[in-house]
């Protein structure tokens, strides 16, 4: 019994230390976190207005009844799913380079899922009735509604990743080896689960027979291809930020492994896009209307045209760069990654959600553009996601480096907490080695 209390106390101390370290850093850390907090507060303010006056504060209408909230939600599900692209090489192909980086991918997945949940919640007309969605408590339409599947897979994925990251970090903190049976099975479940979250999210759209733009079997594969492009691209950038601002060592070779994943995914992504465009425009049935609206405009309405061509251009330039040896240099790789992320964000977000509603099933054309309030809510959620990820990294990195551990008494802990210590490791970042040829 007493050993159980000791264990519980150890765990609480662990949580307390993690929580405390999130509030400690150098001036750059405080500036960054302060900035994010301000944006989050602006977002909360915008959401409070929406809560009181209703979704009329957004740009949505009965004709276009989903907008940037659901668009961002769809994109972030992809980012979350992409953590699998780090896990698969490590646990299935025994890739050593990425081994220690898996946890950063999984933490990103946790932050991304939290953003997803936030984006869905702000889209609800009656957030006070969220409990109707809780299985067993409310009235859950499972397995009928794909949205109920999404509730299960997203929350399940969140729990899986929280468990894996939390357990591994806690073991490292305690200085013991993680018990294989207690996390490896979850790692493999999480790989399949990652595919499922994006497939189910695709099926949300695919399952609607009245919307020909979505009711196409290629939507699921396209979702996965774009997710496995944008997600690892985001991880490539995040890892470089980590290596720049902490003394955590991340090899160029690890980044280049990710590059080859982004490379292949981007090729598949563009190929699938070409497939869809051929089918729509060669046959030219009346179902082409939404694609026509998206790519060229319909009956003089073309709000999305500049966006989608930007996205297509970005995707093509990015693909071109990625297949060239040029992107073995990080400068070009980063450029290609940014293009891929922005391109896919436009394409998977506004480019997928909005044209599904234009024209309406009765042929009406009503355009959509997000309102200022709606945009602020989105920015708030993005800032919230970045804040979560920063906090997770702030906790995880000292643990992984062994600077935050159970063995250390409060005296040595101070070094971790002290701004001076934070400066010390920020001052000599890992040397950036040249690209491996």
């Amino acid at each position, binding site marked *: 019994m007493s050993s159980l209390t000791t264990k519980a106390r150890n765990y609480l101390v662990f949580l307390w230390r993690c929580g405390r370290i999130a509030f400690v850093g150098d001036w750059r850390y405080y500036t960054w976190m302060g900035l994010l907090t301000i944006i989050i*507060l602006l977002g909360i303010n915008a959401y409070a207005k929406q*809560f009181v006056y209703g979704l009329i504060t957004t740009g949505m209408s*009965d004709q276009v009844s989903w907008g940037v909230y659901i668009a961002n939600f769809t994109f972030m599900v992809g980012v979350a799913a992409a953590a699998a692209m780090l896990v698969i090489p490590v646990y299935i192909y025994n890739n050593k380079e990425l081994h220690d980086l898996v946890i950063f991918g999984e933490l990103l997945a946790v932050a991304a899922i939290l953003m997803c949940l936030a984006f869905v919640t702000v889209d609800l007309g009656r957030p006070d*009735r969220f409990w109707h969605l809780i299985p067993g408590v409310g009235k859950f339409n499972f397995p*009928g509604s794909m*949205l109920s599947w999404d509730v299960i897979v997203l929350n399940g994925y969140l729990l899986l990743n929280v468990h894996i990251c939390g357990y591994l970090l806690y073991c490292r903190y305690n200085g013991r080896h993680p018990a294989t049976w207690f996390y490896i099975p979850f790692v493999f479940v999480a790989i399949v689960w990652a595919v499922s979250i994006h497939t189910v999210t695709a099926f949300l759209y695919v399952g609607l027979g*009245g919307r020909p733009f979505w009711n196409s079997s290629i939507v699921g594969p396209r979702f996965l291809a774009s997710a496995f492009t944008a997600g690892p691209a985001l991880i490539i950038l995040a890892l470089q930020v980590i290596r720049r601002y902490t003394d955590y060592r991340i090899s160029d070779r690890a980044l280049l492994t990710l590059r080859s994943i982004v490379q292949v995914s981007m090729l598949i992504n563009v190929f699938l896009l070409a497939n869809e465009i051929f089918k729509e425009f060669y046959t030219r049935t009346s179902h082409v209307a939404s694609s026509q609206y998206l790519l060229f405009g319909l009956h003089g309405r073309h709000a999305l045209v500049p966006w989608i061509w930007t996205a297509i251009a970005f995707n093509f330039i990015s693909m071109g760069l990625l297949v060239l040896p040029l992107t073995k240099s990080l400068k070009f790789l980063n450029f290609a990654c940014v293009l891929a992320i922005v391109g896919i964000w436009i394409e998977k977000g506004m480019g997928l959600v909005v044209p599904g509603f234009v024209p309406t099933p*009765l042929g009406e054309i009503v355009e959509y553009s997000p309102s200022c309030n709606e945009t602020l809510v989105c920015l708030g959620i993005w800032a919230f996601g970045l804040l979560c990820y920063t906090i997770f990294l702030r906790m995880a990195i000292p643990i992984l480096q062994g600077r935050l551990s159970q063995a250390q008494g409060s005296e040595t802990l101070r070094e971790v907490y*002290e701004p001076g210590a934070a400066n010390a490791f920020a001052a000599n970042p890992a040397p950036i080695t040249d690209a491996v040829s």
Partner: protein
Amino acid sequence: MADANRSTPPEGEVSRRDFLKTSAVLASGMAALAASLAPLRDLKDYTSVEKFLQKHYKEMTPEEMQKVLERIAREVERQYHVRPRVRDYKPMDGVEFVYCLNLTRCIGCRKCVHACVAENNQSRNPEIQYIRVLKMPHGSLDLEKGDHNYAPESVPEKGFFYMPVQCQQCKNPPCVKVCPVKATWQEPDGVTVIDYDWCIGCRYCEAACPYFARRFNWTKPSIPKERLNADMSYLGNRPRRQGVMEKCHFCVQRTRQGKYPACLEVCPAGARKFGNVLDPESEVSYILRNKRVFIQLKEELGTSPRFFYYFDV
């Protein structure tokens, strides 16, 4: 690591300076949070413990339903100063409602649209309408060619026909299938209804509907007091709340008492026919038996509407 030598209290103890600093940060943080939440002060009548805990329509006992109906009546009276009669009309045995609309006769006057708004207590601002009349060019049923906003001096215009579209009361309703919380379902008399007090406002049904039949309350609906229809039903025309879906329900508060829907009664052209398809003597049964051509809109989607369009041939 020169800083590490600075004298700082061990973990758990807090210096006066640190305490003041932390308090200041905390206080300004709370103030900023409170300021950002300021719009919530305008929140009136949003929910209550009673409303928050209200059960799903199908899970309420008759006594619980009675209490809810009384509460709704009180709320309506407080807001509109009209004492309403709120009932929960149940479907009748041996009845399956079907609508038939004669495209040869419809003149596109939109009287049905406005009768519906008046009967069903739809919001006037912003305007919500369940029926959409399309002006179609002669010879085509391609909905994309329809004009939603026609406004000539007088109707009908030569070279066009008119096609009113409302909820088609499908036998395989996609909206019911996708609702994550079973807030919308098909009743035994064939009417797809919504529990306005259970809907979470995700608008998935609105995306799923192939007929643009569903409407969302983007803000608090407003109805002039003198226009309120005081004869209300739970699943029908009682005033809705902000953030929930609504749509045509074949005027359950009328039709379940044996009356015709409001849109039918007002139609000056006699284009609208409504009745019980299980009764072989009904007008709709006669039409479905004897008219040579009738159309279910978007039949290829497999929704199997209970709303039929026909021609006088």
